[in-house]
């Protein structure tokens, strides 16, 4: 393995979980689709790796590629979809058990699916814990505007998951 291959492998190991989570959020929890999307993203990362300037944050760089690739691979077919819809998920009665956590996650996927494309990208980055200025940089919306938008989407999502 040469230097670039090694660097690529390290990148893959370090960033795969966050890329995969983002993709799962985009395809409402469909693992196969998310894996395909993740692969597509890592191919783009490979193609652009030599252009990466080390003064910028590698995470932000990868998230940029990820949200743009997910947008360009937008799926329009709903037929035979293995993704989760809100009606498929039972209500959460007790909290903190494993089953309830799984249900809560499934509801979260279903609620994210209901958001607009841009709001979906924003909330996925928020869930990943990115600071607002980085989200603003990745999405290309001014910091003030993104702050109010995040607040609104967070409320919307929390209410949706709680079935309010």
């Amino acid at each position: 393995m040469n230097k670039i291959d090694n660097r690529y492998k390290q990148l893959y190991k370090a960033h795969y979980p966050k890329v995969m989570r983002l993709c799962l959020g985009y395809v409402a929890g469909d693992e196969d689709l998310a894996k395909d999307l993740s692969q597509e993203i890592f191919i783009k990362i490979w193609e652009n790796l030599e252009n990466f300037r080390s003064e910028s944050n590698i995470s932000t760089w990868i998230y940029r590629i990820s949200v743009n690739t997910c947008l360009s691979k937008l799926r329009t077919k709903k037929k035979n979809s293995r993704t989760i819809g809100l009606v498929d998920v039972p209500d959460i009665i007790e909290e903190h058990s494993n089953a309830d956590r799984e249900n809560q996650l499934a509801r979260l996927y279903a609620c994210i699916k209901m958001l607009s494309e841009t709001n979906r990208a924003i909330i996925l980055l928020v869930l990943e814990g990115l600071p607002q200025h980085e989200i603003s940089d990745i999405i290309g919306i001014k910091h003030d505007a993104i702050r109010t938008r995040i607040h609104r989407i967070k409320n919307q999502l929390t209410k949706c998951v709680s079935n309010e």
Partner: protein
Amino acid sequence: MNNFEELQSDWKNQSKIEPTEQGFQNLLTALREIKNKQRVSNVILSITVIILIGFFFYISGYNNQQVILGISFMIGSLLVRMLLEIWSMRKLNKMNTLSNRADFRNELIGYYTDRKFVHFLWTPLILLTYVSGFLILLPLFKATLSTGFYTYIIVSSIMLLIFFSIFITKQIIQEMKKLERIQQG
């Protein structure tokens, strides 16, 4: 009620998303396949063009204007369609995934808006030219082929035309839906 921090914690603690050696090897295979695919499509395209040009010169040897016209319409329309698709594919692949999402979104909207010209201007023109070429050749087919083979050519061509029309219509509907969703935000 769930608070957002709780959702965030569940989000980050999702299972089954750890990277594996097999996953990385699959990725390397996919990278190699992309390079091979590009090489193979270039070779196929070059061979097709050489065969078509060779065939065209072979046919023009008969000095039959009707054949030349019919064949030129059919081959020309196919070539234009192929070139348009290759141009579109390259444009899509060359889009800058490193720009911010708003700029990338505008680039995508531009791409799908350009595709409208392909779908609603070029595609009908190409289909019309192809069918015209076929209709020009029909009297020659009738004169030189047996009735059975002539009927077979007509029926199979109509079926092929219907099949391609459905395929292209589906592609157009899908792309227009995509454009609509991207424009919605």
